[in-house]
């Protein structure tokens, strides 16, 4: 009786857990996500650019999403970026 109850419960647990699995496609060639931030002073137009990078991004699309989050001021979803001491490389 106990086994009869446990088996469907385990199946149910498996189904629930498997629904959490990510469908994200990893880009094998993707390594570092580079983004530049240009800060411009509204009064004077003074402007300068800094380069940032993230090693947590898994694909070009994920990197673009990080840049978009930065552009939207959504710092929760872009806090993995770090200031880079070097300029972003050309691709």
């Amino acid at each position, binding site marked *: 009786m106990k086994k009869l109850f446990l088996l469907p419960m385990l199946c149910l647990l498996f189904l629930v857990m498997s629904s959490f699995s990510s469908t994200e496609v990893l880009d094998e060639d993707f390594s570092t996500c580079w983004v530049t931030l*240009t800060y411009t002073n509204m*009064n004077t137009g003074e402007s300068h650019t800094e380069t940032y990078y993230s090693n947590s991004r898994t694909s070009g699309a994920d*990197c673009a999403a990080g840049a978009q989050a930065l552009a939207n001021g959504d710092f929760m979803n872009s806090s993995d970026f770090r200031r880079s001491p070097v300029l972003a490389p050309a691709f």
Partner: protein
Amino acid sequence: MKYFIYIVFFCQFFGHGQDNDSIPIFEYEVNYNLGKALVKKGFVFEYNSNVYYNTSKTEFIENIEKLTTDGNTGVPNVNLFSAGDGTENNVSLFKEKIHLDTYSLGNDVLLTDEMLQMQKWVSTGHMKLVNGRNCAEMVSGFRGRDYIAYVDLTIPVKFGPWKFNSFPGLPILIYDTENKLQWTLTEIRKKSYGNILNFIEEQESYLNSLKKMTLREYVKLYDDTDHGHTLMVSKLSRDYKRENGRKKMKREGFELKFEWETVD
């Protein structure tokens, strides 16, 4: 006859300024090229021994998108802007010898106060026709920049846009010798006292709403935060902030050197 024409001219001018119900507003086209080139309109007038200067909002010459991709590197570029719309507000209180100014830095527009600096304009002896007016060429230095002004000596106005003062006439064109800053007189209009008083009241209320500090405190903040850049990204991880030992960025704004700093 010649003297009569002069008398009529000056009567007209003073009448222009001291009409019972209006005072002259001097309108300038303002061009800055300190990074992203921009244009705006500046308005300056004198009321009750104070000089008021304010500008319209900033209009960048090039269209700047929030998010772009660099054509050469393919790297996404995020454009961040400091607070405000670029409107400048300056008040020179000549009796108190204080100058008030607004600065945009990071996520704040700040109100600063400083000792009013009186400039010394020296004539080069050259005369030039500028905007249809016969002007005397004058030079002066102010906080690390050298300026050239073309002044119409026939109009007895001592003040100019921004922090400029002590002219022997009306400045028609002022620019710095690096051609990064320029103010060009475009129009002289009259505004009623009612309008002026309303403006002063609204400006006072706006200035009182801002965070206040001395110019010296502002300059330290400007230097310590990479000109406000690190203030914009302060919600990010600590690596965004200035690393220890990192060199201060070279100043690129209007003012490059201040009177309290040692001269090299």
